[in-house]
């Protein structure tokens, strides 16, 4: 009961409601814009959250996450361009349905299924995250090492690159994480006498560079691309018949999305693909899929939004990001002095349940915005790239500079923008770099700390049940890309 009251706290705070309103609106706009999405948006706004208290800051980021994930469906349905990678599966049936003159029905179903999926996942988050948190003091440095290894094994299957390319990108991220003063020896590594680098490379310049700047450079090669738009007369609720047809699919995909979201380093993209394929498998009319099936939209959208709450479970309970956007949220927690992990549930329950409540409200808010604003949001895609992207660039530079008032951070951001551009050009996903950067430091630090604790005896890792479990899970996870590629072949 007390926790329920804590969850409702955002409803009684005008400041938090304002933050939620702004975050949801901003997230929706970002989701609509192809190439942007909640990850880039979160990274862009991260430095500005420093003017907020920690709860408002994380509420802002999570509302962007929830709304941005849904927003990707709008352009996926209207112009066959997913606003976010997680909406890619929505294109498969959303756009054909829109071409039949039923864009409103398609958007309506996307809105309802996203909302149900999102709310379902928050309920999962509320119940399962505290269970994980009970392990609080069972997690020593050896357990964190094993967990980080488990997170790193997911590198192969995250993002849109091939497993080998993902691993290379992840290794690059780990390499970057070694820059700076080694906290266990006090020796500077790869700083070349530049004192500003002794604190290491910050997450924000790298994240903004890899996502926003590299996307800007990519968009600069597509300036004359003309998107074919379809008529949108109205956004309407799905009919009763549509509900009868899809409620099982929505519930199933909500479960699938929540489960996949919980796995560290997985996220909405994989969830929507699997949600879509399972919808097809259980459908009475699988032949309609790819031709405008309402079940296909429901399956993909419920799953990708359900992954948002799921991905917050390992992020908050263990400090391991469940998706690319939660990696940005994790950065937000860290820079606000909040140490994600099991202790958080014991030490700051009001903070955590405030976030859960805010996520719940964000799902309701984007439902309202989605129904009344989808038509307007879709028009953002008409802003010419040559105006839109320089504006985004300006925000990126200001945001990165403002964090530490360091011009070196701006140069780092630009450098990683160029690196990200070439990575994408040659088929590498930039997401593993971020995961490598975050987990690399954890892997190295906890391994060395564990070895000091174990007096150098490696075999002691095997005496710790939780660590051993994560090592076994890591081995299983290594086989996941093979299973996924089989699943993808089936879908296509």
């Amino acid at each position: 009961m007390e926790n329920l009251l804590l969850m409702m706290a955002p409803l009684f705070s005008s400041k938090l409601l304002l933050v939620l309103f702004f975050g949801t609106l901003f997230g929706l706009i970002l989701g609509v814009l192809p190439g942007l999405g909640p990850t880039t948006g979160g990274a862009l706004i991260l430095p500005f959250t420093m003017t907020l208290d920690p709860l408002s800051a994380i509420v802002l980021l999570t509302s962007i996450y929830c709304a941005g994930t849904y927003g990707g469906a709008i352009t996926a349905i209207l112009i066959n361009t997913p606003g976010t990678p997680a909406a890619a599966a929505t294109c498969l049936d959303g756009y054909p349905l829109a071409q039949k003159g039923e864009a409103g029905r398609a958007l309506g179903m996307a809105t309802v299924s996203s909302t149900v999926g999102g709310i379902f996942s928050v309920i999962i988050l509320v119940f399962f995250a505290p269970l994980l948190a009970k392990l609080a003091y069972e997690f020593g440095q050896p357990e964190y090492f094993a967990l980080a290894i488990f997170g790193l094994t997911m590198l192969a299957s995250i993002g849109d690159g091939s497993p080998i390319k993902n691993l290379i990108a992840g290794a690059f991220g780990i390499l970057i994480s070694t820059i700076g003063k080694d906290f266990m020896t006090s020796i500077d590594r790869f700083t070349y006498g530049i004192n500003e680098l002794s604190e290491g490379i910050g997450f924000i310049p790298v994240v903004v560079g890899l996502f926003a700047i590299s996307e800007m450079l990519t968009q600069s090669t597509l300036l004359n691309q003309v998107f074919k738009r379809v008529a949108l007369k109205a956004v309407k609720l799905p009919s009763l018949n549509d509900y009868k047809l899809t409620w099982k699919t929505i519930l199933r995909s909500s479960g699938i999305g929540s489960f996949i979201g919980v796995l560290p380093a997985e996220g909405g993209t994989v969830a929507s693909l699997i949600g879509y394929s399972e919808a097809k498998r259980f459908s009475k009319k699988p032949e309609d899929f790819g031709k405008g099936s309402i079940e296909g939209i429901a399956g993909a959208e419920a799953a990708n939004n359900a992954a948002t709450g799921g991905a917050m479970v390992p992020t908050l309970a263990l400090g391991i990001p469940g998706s690319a956007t939660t990696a940005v949220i994790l950065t937000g927690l860290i820079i606000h002095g909040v140490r994600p992990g099991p202790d958080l549930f014991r030490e700051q329950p009001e903070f955590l349940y405030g976030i859960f409540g805010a996520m719940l409200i964000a799902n309701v808010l984007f439902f309202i915005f989605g129904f009344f604003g989808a038509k307007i949001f879709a028009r953002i895609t008409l802003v010419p790239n040559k105006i839109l992207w320089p504006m985004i660039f300006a925000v990126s530079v200001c945001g990165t500079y403002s964090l530490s008032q360091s011009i070196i951070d701006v140069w780092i951001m630009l450098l990683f923008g160029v690196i990200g551009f070439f990575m994408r050009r040659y088929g590498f996903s930039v997401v593993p770099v971020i995961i490598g950067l975050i987990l690399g430091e954890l892997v190295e630090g906890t391994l060395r700390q564990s070895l000091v604790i174990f007096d150098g005896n490696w075999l002691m890792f095997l005496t710790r049940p939780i660590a051993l479990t994560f090592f076994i899970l890591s081995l299983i996870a290594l086989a996941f890309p093979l299973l996924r590629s089989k699943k993808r072949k089936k879908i296509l």
Partner: protein
Amino acid sequence: MKKSFKLFLATAFLVTEFFVIALPMLTTSARADGAIQAITHAGFGGGTDVTTRMMLLRARRVLKQDMQLVNKKGGGGAVSMDYMMSLPADGQHTLTWTTGHAVSMALGKTKVKLSDMQPLARGTDDPQLFVVNCKADIKDAKKFISAQKSKSLKYGTTHVGGIDDVSAIAFTKKGGLKDPTIVAYKGVAPIKTNLIKGDIDVGVLNLGEALTEINEGTLCVSIVLANNRMAKIGDSPTATELGIPVVLSTVRGFVTKKGAPAERVKELEAGMMKAMSHNYYKNFLTEIGLDETSVVGADEWGAQMEVMLAEMTAQLKALGYTN
């Protein structure tokens, strides 16, 4: 190259030029409006950041001048000191100087010397504590010492080459005890978790960092590295009482660049002292387990800075961190 692409590149270039070149100018001009720069080297929400912000709360009003927090991270404080030296000696800035800056100077990471800085006031003086699991025998200080006579204890510290491992090593050397095994962490939270789990024996912490667990009865303070016992943990003896005279603390105070007009220096010192005598600041000290004796004026603070630098230089040399 297509015309639109050229236009795009030109726009991007102009925007870059504006922000990359103009941003520092914009921030400088903002400061020229009369605000005092309060320079720190620490991350947001850390002890130094919070101490500085708490001082700023009232100092703005007392000095009748706006104060802006300027964050200059890097080099363990070296970047912040170098930045201060790049400013004119006009008393329009302060730097929060800490034990970390002393370490950075001792390690030769900056050419700035103590004689380049004008002490203003001290904000906190937080003694180093040896914190243990309350279930462990070594919560009794005498058993702590006798245990370390026969075996090396594992000490959790924040980083190495700083006040924490210097505290552990100075204590064991002066006490003729077995060398400590240092397990370095990036923050205090895992030190506490590992102490409770039993993976390490001792955590080198400040009172405010472990106050929640101490109040809960999960963690106990075995030994205090201060001249006198601390009011909140009056049962915990000092190292000196136990015959090992080691006194070390995490200290934060304020300085400005040497050469500022004497009147301005006095004005800043008086303003800070008044600001830190306000209830806001006193409550903050209480929250972190300290009292108003933390706050002292320029003379005492300047003398302590010299002692600290000399002590850290000697200790780091003994540990092999510097020649």
